């Protein structure tokens, strides 16, 4: 069995410019993964499947992960020029101070593929792909033409996370119903206020039931949404 670096080297030799990157996994399982650039992903996948030495013929698990925007606070050393009065004379001096700067790391959706080899009996080899952002640029290439087992699992990711797989033969919702709007596995998903609550509501259900009734009463008052 090859190590993750050897697999990376094999991919780069076979598919020039594939842009593969090793993502280390610090947990005791030590299942490190390879991050692929979406442009060449299908080519890389086909190589992994058909290469006689790697022979990753079995795609076991496909899943999505939502990584929302993250606020990162980091300490930065800032050097700025300040005017100081030294002994009655104005002087320009450089001063270095530590400041905490906050910046927002943009979020993305990630798709993870777990590959095994039935022929060589090893695995898992983990592949990951990232979308550009979480809202409008969510296209990733589908690996269903390479491994059929991705068909239903990619449909599920489309359904629950909203990743759009280009080249998928039958991209429809699978678990939620046709016409459902949102993607429930996103971390900022808000449940729709669209069902009647139980008559003996309590605790948090009671609060939501009251909000629901108030909203319904508001709509009835304005004559909207009836």
């Amino acid at each position: 069995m090859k190590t993750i670096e050897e697999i990376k080297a094999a991919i780069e030799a076979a598919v020039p410019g594939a842009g593969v990157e090793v993502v280390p996994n610090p947990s005791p399982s030590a299942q490190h993964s390879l991050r692929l650039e979406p442009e060449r992903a299908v080519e890389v996948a086909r190589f992994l499947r058909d290469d006689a030495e790697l022979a990753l013929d079995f795609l076991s698990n496909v899943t999505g992960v939502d990584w929302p925007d993250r606020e990162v606070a980091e300490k930065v050393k800032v050097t700025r020029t300040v005017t100081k009065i030294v002994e009655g004379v104005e002087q320009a001096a450089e001063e270095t101070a530590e400041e905490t700067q906050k910046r927002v790391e943009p979020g993305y959706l990630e798709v993870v593929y777990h590959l095994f080899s039935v022929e060589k009996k090893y695995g898992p080899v983990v592949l990951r792909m990232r979308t550009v952002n979480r809202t409008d640029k969510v296209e990733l290439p589908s690996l269903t033409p390479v491994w059929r087992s991705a068909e239903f699992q990619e449909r599920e990711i489309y359904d629950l996370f909203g990743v759009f797989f280009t080249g998928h033969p039958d991209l429809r919702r699978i678990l939620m119903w046709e016409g459902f709007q949102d993607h429930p596995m996103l971390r900022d998903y808000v449940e729709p206020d669209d069902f009647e609550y139980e008559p003996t509501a309590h605790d948090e259900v009671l609060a939501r039931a009251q909000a629901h009734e108030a909203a319904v009463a508001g709509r009835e008052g304005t004559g909207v949404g009836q």
Partner: protein
Amino acid sequence: MTVSGAIRKMKPEGWNRPPLVKLDSEGELLEIAMGPHHPSTHGVFRMNLTLDGERVVGLKPEFGYLHRNHEKIAESISYLACMPYTDRLDYICSLTNNWAYALAVEKLVGLEVPERAEYLRVILGELTRVQNHLGATGFLIQDMGASGTPLMYAFKEREKILDLFESLTGSRMMCNYMRFGGCRVDASSAWLDAARKVVAGLPSFVGEFESLLCTNEILMARTQEMGILRRELAVNAGVTGPLLRASGINYDLRKVDHYGIYDRFDFRVPLGEHGDVYDRMMVRLLEVRESIKILEAALKDIPGGPVMDSKAKNRGLRPKPGEAYGRIEAPKGELGFYLISDGGPNPYRYRVRPPSLINLTILEDMCLGHSVADVVLIFGSVDIVLGEVDR
């Protein structure tokens, strides 16, 4: 030639899609929805069939009637609190679900399992396999029209195994027994004796069951050459479990992954040759025989000692950031759990790799060209539980 070798030779694109069926020029196509409330769909599951006369020319499975977003629930509760929820995935085999989840967390945290607990896990896992395969065969024959008797015959033995589960774990089907780094309670010597007694009765029962069914002419005529699954497609479509092995692929995770203590037992992996419904039924029955061998050895060798790792932490578990994918050979195929931890008390991402759902990917390929009555049979031979398909 190996499977991958065969794939490398098969170049034309689209070979792994369902084939196009030639239509007769006369007559109209009929579209019918089979299910969700149909006795042969084993739950709430719908197949949208396109029929040319009696012949199936298209089949689209529809899921989600039992969807409760198990994964989202698991991401909002602690690692331990999720254990009872895993019982409800494949509710016929709750103990193997527990095992797969415990294994994934043990990989994530790096826990060892004491020897006695490993033996108990093997005993309970194999008992689960026996009762699942007996039930699956009984249901399959029920779908064939042999109403009642063979199913109840299989359930007679299954009931004894469920009694064992109940006396050890407190529940017949929702066992909630495994823990990270061991098992919840120890088995008494009286329980082990009762298990030995049940296992001692199994071989004669299986022999009788086989001799009643497997050489039955009607059953053979009904199931052979039916719903054939090619081996290249089986691997490419991620099919696992008895379905894969009936197509002739030697891939059993107990042998491949060496998880638990399966290396210590002498057992064989039954393989089919044709990949039809009959082979699937036979592979299941032969697997029961191999499981009995494992059970006999495990019940003989089980050592004393603790059933929980003393360092193991279950309540308030906060794994270090990282991820792990753990999988076992569940009765229905490869059951995997993928966990990502961000260091918090609940999983950042929790994913179940359900064998039942992925084994259904090739349902259309297997059913094309057959009649509606055969679809019932082919679907029954896949052996699914809707609690796991829809999650």
